[in-house]
């Protein structure tokens, strides 16, 4: 049944091209909801064995080359399917105002979602790679056509980084295919690859996938891409696409090459810790709200990679939980920054926003952003805390030093999050109302007809902005509910993730 997530989403995408534009957003919403409903139904009532990568569909595809249309499911995939569904629904809700070329917009959006469902469910390496590469082009068009700041540059950079990672993965997959003589992930997971092959094929494969997970120093596509993307685009990038890389690293690279993983995991941990601290430090100095969030994504994905590198049940389960958690939180942050703030004020400059007294003008946005920031900082009660603490417990067993450095990094995360929060919503006095000259160089600010910063430097007057619409409230509500639910009761997901992680080979 779970395979229908893929079919429904692609069918929805095709229907979008045929029907007139007025239906576009409704079709997209129905499709995304249906996909989520299918995963949710599976989560609650299906009796699939989630502890193992259980086959749910297997049809010969290209028998001559041993390719099968093979889908399978376990707790890890299911968790990621859920977050895909949540991010998809909220992305559609936050794109409710897209009118121009709406069919095309939602078409590309659904292709990203459908391809992601495909990656999470594929049990055939070629099929997985097909879905993985399928996501690249829709991202490009989503950003290049519908994006904002520097969109063509951002889109091209993101696409080329993805495709570069894809080329590495391509090489790794061919090596697996030729040496292992199969493309079936479950069969390959039993196969003993030669250590010499593992020593070079693992880093190629892992790094190729990790480009999409934002591994330092190949992370720079992420902030640029996020900033250039339309709101829904950034939400999908943060919510789903970065997870594709992390998931595939785990499912393919680590699971197939356990020895290679052992050889290289310390280096992965080093890169992950650098990523966490470096991205947080960079975020502290950003002037554009979306850049802050973009770098925070890189920092949070660093936790995922650190969790994977620990090679124990806690760390890896925590990494999967963090994928879910960051998917929800990242989407929420981008929704506030992109739709609630930028669409109304036409600026994302922290200096310009500081004078607008947005907490009065947009109280709901302020509330949402506070929740999202709290979750992002890792306040207990939200999913971020549950995930990061699990990762750090795991890391303590493998790399105690990494935990100390990461701890310092988390202070930085709190610092930049609070700074962004304060500057955006709660800077009531006019101390920073005078925008610095540097920020005026930004194109967005220049395009503004009248900088609201000057009108509203006094706290009493709040500028009139379009109120938050119902679709936005629904989308934000869904995301906030998800992060709270998982934060308060992480066992709910962990119970399904942990057995699946324990079944993986690299732990043994």
């Amino acid at each position, binding site marked *: 049944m779970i395979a229908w997530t893929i079919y429904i989403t692609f069918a929805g995408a095709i229907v979008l091209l045929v029907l007139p534009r007025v239906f576009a957003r409704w079709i997209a919403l129905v499709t995304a909801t249906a996909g989520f409903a299918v995963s949710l139904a599976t989560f609650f009532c299906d009796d699939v064995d989630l502890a193992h990568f259980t086959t749910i569909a297997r049809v010969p*595809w*290209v*028998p*001559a*080359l041993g390719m099968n249309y093979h889908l399978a499911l376990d707790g890890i995939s299911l968790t990621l399917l859920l977050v895909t569904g949540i991010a998809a629904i909220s992305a559609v809700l936050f794109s409710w105002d897209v009118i121009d070329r709406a069919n095309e917009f939602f078409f590309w959006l659904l292709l990203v979602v459908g391809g992601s469902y495909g990656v999470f469910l594929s049990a055939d390496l*070629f099929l997985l*790679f*097909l*879905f993985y*590469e*399928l996501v*690249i*082009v829709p991202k*490009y*068009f989503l950003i*290049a*056509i519908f994006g904002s700041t520097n969109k*063509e540059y951002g889109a*091209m950079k993101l*696409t*080329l980084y993805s*495709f*570069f990672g*894809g*080329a*590495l993965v*391509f*090489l790794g997959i*061919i*090596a697996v*295919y*030729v040496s292992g003589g199969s493309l079936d992930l479950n069969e390959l997971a039993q196969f003993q690859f030669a250590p010499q092959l593992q020593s070079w094929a693992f880093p190629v494969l892992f790094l190729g996938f990790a480009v999409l997970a934002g591994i330092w120093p190949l992370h720079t596509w992420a902030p640029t891409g996020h900033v250039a993307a339309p709101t829904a685009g950034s939400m999908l990038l943060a919510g789903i696409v970065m997870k594709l890389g992390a998931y595939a690293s785990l499912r393919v690279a680590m699971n197939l090459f356990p020895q290679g993983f052992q050889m290289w995991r310390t280096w992965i941990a080093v890169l992950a810790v650098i990523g966490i601290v470096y991205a947080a430090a960079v975020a502290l100095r950003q002037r554009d709200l979306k850049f802050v969030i973009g770098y925070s994504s890189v920092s949070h994905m660093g936790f995922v990679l650190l969790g994977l590198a620990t090679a124990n049940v806690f760390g890896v389960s925590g990494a999967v939980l963090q994928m879910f958690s960051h998917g929800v939180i990242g989407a929420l942050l981008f929704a506030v920054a992109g739709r609630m703030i930028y669409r109304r004020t036409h600026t994302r400059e922290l200096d310009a926003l500081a004078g607008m007294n947005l907490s009065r003008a947009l109280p709901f946005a302020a509330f949402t952003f506070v929740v999202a920031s709290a979750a992002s900082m890792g306040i207990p009660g939200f999913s971020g805390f549950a995930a990061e603490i699990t990762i750090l417990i795991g890391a303590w067993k493998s790399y105690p030093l990494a935990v100390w450095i990461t701890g310092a990094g988390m202070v930085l995360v709190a610092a930049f999050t609070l700074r962004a929060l304060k500057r955006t919503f709660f800077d009531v006095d006019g101390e920073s109302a005078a925008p610095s000259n540097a920020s005026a160089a930004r194109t967005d600010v220049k395009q503004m007809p009248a900088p609201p910063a000057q009108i509203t430097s006094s706290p009493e007057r709040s500028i009139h902005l379009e109120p938050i619409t119902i679709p936005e409230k629904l989308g934000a509500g869904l995301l906030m509910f998800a992060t709270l639910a998982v934060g308060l009761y992480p066992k709910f997901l962990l119970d399904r993730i942990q057995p699946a992680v324990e079944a993986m080979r690299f732990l043994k």
Partner: protein
Amino acid sequence: MSYLELLKLAAPEAIVVVAALAVLTIGLTTARALVLGPIVAVLGVALAIGAVVMLPSHANLFGGMLVISPLNSLFKIICLALAIATVPLVSSEKALRNPGEYIAVLLLGSVGLMLLVGSEELLMIFIGLELLGLSLYVLAAFDKADVHSAEAGLKYFLFGSTASAFTLFGISLIYGMSGTTALAAIGQKLAGAPVQPLLAVGIVMTLIGFAFKIAAAPFHLWAPDAYQGAPIPSAAFIASGSKVASFVVLGKIVLVGFGPVHGSADWHAMIAGWSPVLAALAAFSILLGNFVALAQTNVRRLLAYSAVAHGGYTLLGVVAGGREGFSATLFYTSTYAVTLVGAFAVVGSVRRETGGDDLQNFSGLAARSPFLAACMAIFFLSLAGLPPLAGFFGKFYLFSAAFRAGANHGLLWLVAVALFGSFVSLYYYLIVLKVIFVDKKPESATAGNGPDFFSRITVTLLAAVVLVLGIMPQTLAAKIIASLP
């Protein structure tokens, strides 16, 4: 062997020749050749395909001069299908003054393709090459009013005739060494013999002619001008049918005829033979083609350099050798040809509406004609090797065959070069698509009446083929594998 039997076995070729003569007559007698010519040509070629299907599965005439085997028949069908796809493009070339003659020459070129594909004997192959080449020179230079077309034809002719001379010289050396011109017999004669200098010269000279045909660097210099200057259908035909047939023959010559002097292109373990030569050509083509394509602002020129790169990828399968490598090459070159005819069809429509084929002529195509834009996206993304299109599977097949071939993954270097090249290539394909989908259409552009009926059908079919071969590659791959001995 009676002549009646020969006529039966050569019926497809005969039918195409008759169709060519019929079209020529139509062109001379009526003024409506632009409409009637293509119809008669398509019918004739379709009939020839039917005749190919009716042929017996195995036959061998005159020591390999005309060989009928499942492989040859399959590729005769593919070449004829490509000719069918090219013919409708003629009707959208309003500038052509004598469409009847043009189509007739195109059909004669198709006969050259069939002779090339259907022969396993060096002399006959050479005759096929020449028949094909002469037709293509005429086709390239056909637009007499256009100086670029004349330039394209002249360049193509000069390079082509030089390359033919090399090939003929190489063949004569091979004949001198082995005393035969039949490929299978050459293979037997060369077995066990060391690679003498004379043999090496013969092999390299023979290969040069084919490197020219497939536009492998450094024998690609004609390609950019021919692709850009020649009339659209000629360029499409040069890029598709001619390339497919050349790869089929090249594969047969090196794998059957020169099989014993395979050599090795493995990293650190190169052994003299033809495979290191082809590997070097492949690597050079991939790098040069992709990097030079980055700088192009004319879409046809860009396609030409990308063709150089794709020739390089396709050579990987030949270098890998064996059944798997050769079938990967054949799959890739067939799907590539289909894609390129489609791309040229779209370029032709754009050229007719906007009067040019530079990048800026494509801006805002998505708003002007969503249909053409979508088809162009399918063709270009397939060229870039993105799923779920034919190029993606083709590359996977090709690269995995190459990776498997060398001892201890010795061809890894070539695969890495190819992957790097295909990474670079995405940039220029995306730039074209960006211009089509993102850029606004220029104010001056008038909303044209879109592509005419024939080219619209053709483009749709070709795009569908690219998509279907990407989703169900089995349909073609299984046939190719089954047809290889």
